[in-house]
Structure formats: structure tokens, C-alpha cells
């Protein structure tokens, strides 16, 4: 029987997304079909994460219009559908950027996501690589119409390395899926319902699993941030460098991006693909363990491969020169080994870099600077 069914169904479904036709395997979601085309026709996704099973369907940013359901039933779907949770049918016609309804609805969704999201990007460590920030700039409205008090929470430490800013959370559930699927026992989840829903640990139980740090990488906003990087520098002033090491942990891929300032490693993250998700290697997502992420903060711990390629539209690409070759200092050679006399050595005058910020376990405070003076 099973063989007969297989023969009847076409091997591949033809879908048309924004007038681009592509063949995909049955069971593919519209979002993944659009990702195969790539570029502008791909709907943005805040909660869907292809490497986490069961994710998606929560944020509604990936809404698309289905202009024709399938060849067999070409009626359009009456409402916009979430493309991460809707599978393609043969002959389906999808409109994303060509539909005004979708653009309008997405602007509305952005506004909804920003209802309770504080606009504290100048403080937030995620700024510059925040998906909500990008989404807001691309689809949102410039001003806020919300006049009421946003819900606020105290910031919370989830274990020694991760800080939770619940005020910034958009409840995408990605981090709970990481905890479910990557770590062996989950100790955090969503408490309460509806407007009161929040992410927390049961009785503030610390998360001390080897892979808990991946929650930081999957968080689309600045709700879960690396405490060892907290306030140390802005993302766009650090240099992303691809590096790897032989990690003892069999589940850890050991391939990471180091975010450097000079030779100091300020932060270690897993590598990201074009959709902002963790890069896959041989079909397996490249999650990294907490030892690689939080404990190996020296350039000598890593084998450096070279600068990470960053889209030139990203603010992170400022001051990031791939293939840069430092010019050779020739003055000493010409002057018979004598170095040029500097009129001013900025490092002897400047107060910046007087403390080794990179080696601190957490953010710098006034106490850090008191000691040095």
C-alpha cells in the first residue's frame, strides 16, 4: 500500500513564491521553501529555528498570503498563514513581499512584539545583532503608539554565565527548546499564562548544563545574554574571527566565532548561518559547549582560521577589514634600527584600556576602576 501512495504523489511539489517557482520535497514548510530561494522573498522568523524541533508558530512575523492553495484546490486561503507552520502543496502560489496585506500585517506584528519590549538598545548587548532590531527597522513603524506602562521585571541570573532580562523577552520559546533538546534535564521554562507569561527557572534553580550557553545564541533579542561579555564592548567594535579547538566533549563541535578586541577574546559564540541560526556541519547543528564558550577566553586556546565574513549591510562590518595586510614599518629599517620618536603616545595618556576588561568574569563596575587608580 505504501508504495502505491508514493507513486501517486509527485516526488516534488512545485510552489511559486513571489513569482519564483521552486520544487521542494513534500512536507516542506513554506518558510523553508522560501529559504531555498533565498534573498528578499524569505519571510523573517523570530521564533522558528530550523535546528530546534517544534519551534515556530508563535511570533507571527513569518505571515504570508497564499493566493492559491494547490493545483487540485486553487482557492486562496482566506487568512494570512504562518509560513513556518504551513506545509507546501503542489501548485501552491504564495505571496510575501508582493502582497500589501502581508507587509501591513507584518508591520502590525512588529508593533505587537514591541509592545512590551523596552527600547533600551543603547544599553542592550544584543544591539547590532538583534533580530528584533533588524525587523523593526525593516518592517516597523518609526514611532511607538503605546502609551501604557510596559511590563517590567528585575534582571535575573540564570546560572553563573547567563543573564536573563525578562523585560526584553518576546516569548519565542527557543531557549526552552534548547534546554529540552540539548540538555538532559531542563530546569527552566515558561511560567504563567498570557500576558503574565515569563521565562524563569523553578525556584531560581541554576542552570549548569554543558550546553546551556546555546540559549544565548538562539535568543533573537537581548533577553538572554552572555554575562562574561556584559557591557564590555559594543558588538560592532569587536572583530569576529573564525576559530576552532579540539573539544573533549563529543557533542561540542568546537567551531566558533571569537569576538576580539585587539588580541583579547571578549566573547565566544557559535557560528551563524545566513538566517542567523547556528551553522550546521555535516547536517548536524554546530552547538558549542559551555567550556568553549565561557572558559576559553584566550586567543592561545584557539586555532584561528581568519576573519568571519560579515554582510556589509551589518553594522558589525564597520572597521572589519577582511584580507587586511598590515603595512610594514619601514622607518626603523631606514633609520638604522632607530624607532621614530613619537610626539605623543596615546596609550600613555589615555585612561581607556587601563584595566583588563576582557579578563573580568562579569561587567566592569565602579569598583573595577577604583582598584586600578
Amino acid at each position: 500500500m505504501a508504495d502505491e501512495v508514493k507513486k501517486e504523489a509527485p516526488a516534488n511539489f512545485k510552489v511559486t513564491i513571489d513569482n519564483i517557482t521552486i520544487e521542494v520535497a513534500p512536507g516542506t514548510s513554506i518558510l523553508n521553501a522560501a529559504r531555498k530561494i533565498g534573498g528578499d522573498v524569505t519571510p523573517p522568523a523570530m521564533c522558528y529555528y530550523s535546528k530546534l524541533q517544534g519551534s515556530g508558530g508563535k511570533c507571527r512575523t513569518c505571515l504570508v498570503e497564499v493566493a492559491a492553495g494547490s493545483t487540485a484546490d486553487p482557492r486562496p486561503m482566506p487568512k494570512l498563514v504562518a509560513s513556518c507552520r504551513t506545509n507546501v502543496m503542489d501548485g501552491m502560489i504564495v505571496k510575501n513581499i508582493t502582497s500589501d496585506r502581508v507587509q501591513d500585517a507584518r508591520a502590525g506584528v512588529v508593533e505587537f512584539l514591541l509592545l512590551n519590549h523596552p527600547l533600551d538598545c543603547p544599553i542592550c548587548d544584543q544591539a547590532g545583532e538583534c533580530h528584533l532590531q533588524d525587523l523593526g527597522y525593516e518592517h516597523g513603524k518609526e514611532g511607538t503608539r503605546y502609551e501604557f506602562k510596559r511590563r517590567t521585571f528585575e534582571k535575573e541570573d540564570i546560572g553563573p554565565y547567563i543573564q536573563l532580562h525578562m523585560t526584553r523577552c518576546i516569548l519565542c520559546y527557543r531557549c526552552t527548546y534548547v534546554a529540552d533538546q540539548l540538555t538532559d534535564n531542563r530546569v527552566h521554562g515558561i511560567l504563567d499564562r498570557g500576558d503574565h507569561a515569563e521565562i524563569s527557572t523553578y525556584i531560581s534553580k541554576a542552570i549548569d548544563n554543558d550546553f546551556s550557553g546555546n540559549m544565548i545564541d538562539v535568543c533573537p533579542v537581548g533577553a538572554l545574554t552572555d554575562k562574561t561579555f556584559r557591557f564590555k564592548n559594543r558588538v560592532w567594535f569587536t572583530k569576529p574571527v573564525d576559530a576552532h579547538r579540539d573539544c573533549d566533549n563529543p557533542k561540542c563541535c568546537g567551531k566558533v566565532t571569537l569576538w576580539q578586541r585587539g588580541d583579547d577574546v571578549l566573547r565566544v559564540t557559535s557560528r551563524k548561518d545566513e538566517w542567523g541560526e547556528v551553522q550546521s556541519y555535516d547536517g548536524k547543528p554546530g552547538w558549542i559547549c559551555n567550556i568553549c564558550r565561557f572558559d576559553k577566553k584566550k586567543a592561545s586556546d584557539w586555532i584561528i582560521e581568519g576573519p568571519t565574513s560579515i554582510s556589509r549591510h551589518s553594522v558589525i562590518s564597520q572597521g572589519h577589514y577582511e584580507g587586511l595586510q598590515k603595512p610594514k614599518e619601514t622607518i626603523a629599517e631606514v633609520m638604522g634600527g632607530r624607532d621614530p620618536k613619537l610626539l605623543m603616545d596615546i596609550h600613555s595618556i589615555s585612561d581607556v584600556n587601563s584595566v583588563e576588561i576582557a579578563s573580568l568574569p562579569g561587567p566592569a563596575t565602579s569598583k573595577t576602576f577604583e582598584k586600578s587608580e
Partner: protein
Amino acid sequence: MLTQRAKEVDRKPMTFLESIYLWNIMKGMGITISHLFKKKATINYPEQTRTFSKVFRGLHVLNRDEEGRENCTACGLCAVACPAEAITMEGAERLPGEEHLYREEKYAAKYEINMLRCIFCGLCEEACPKDAIYLSQTFAPANYGRKGFIYKKDDLLIPHPIENKEAYEAALGDKPAKN
């Protein structure tokens, strides 16, 4: 034609009256003396100063709010906007009990502007989301060494609006208030 303005040079030998230059000297002195009665083009700086335009871009000031807390959160937007790469900073976290010093949970522990690099373009002011930096209506004063042009946070911060109200208002100048 516009370009054909060449005058033929008179090469006749000068007469005696012409050769003693009396008339030419008198003419020149006339111009000089007439200037004695005209309004002076210069002023006695620094006793006197000129009024600046409201949009004049001078020395930077780091702003405080009306309670005297520092506005700057070390977001780095001024530094990334700066075309001369003159601004550097280091951020720090506000400790409990420091709420009267800093407006938000993050603040600039170190903030430096290299006035030798600065081109006074005002892009830092434009980039600032917190109204924390603005360009005042004063010059960066001259200095004997290069060292003196590295302005640190203490040099840049505006006086405290409650403890030192007069100096605060003087530093504020007559710039139109931003919202």
C-alpha cells in the same frame, strides 16, 4: 570679450614730478589714515568674545539630566558615527546605590575625545540617542602639549545642575533645547 582685458603698459620715461613719488605717497597714506577712523575688524580676545551662531559646533559637553545624573550609557553610537575616530569609551554597570550618579543601568566609566583628531562635525551629537553629548559654543582652548588635547570624562562633563547651577547654565549656553 571677457578675457581680452590686457592693457598696454605705458613705457614712457617718468617726468620729474612723477619720479619723486609725492602724489603716490600721499595717496597711499590717505588710504592708511582713512582706516584709523573706520570700525575695527578685530576684538580684544579673550577679554571680549564674539557671539556665536546658535548652531555653532565647538567643544563637546557630556550632558546630565535635571537631577544631575549622567545621560551617557556608553552605547558607542557617537564613536561609530565619528568620521575621525576621535572618541573612545569603556562602559560599566551601575551598582545599587549609584542611581543618583547615572541615569541608566549602564554608564560610561571612561569617555575620551581626542581633540587633535576631532573635526567638530557634530555627527556624535546627531547620533546620540540619549541627548548625552552636544557641541557647545566654546572653542577648545589652546594648550602647550599634545597631552592636553585628550579630553577625559571630567573635562567633558557639564557642571552639576543643582550643586553648581550657574556654571551649568553657562555651559548650557543658548542652544535650542532638544527633546
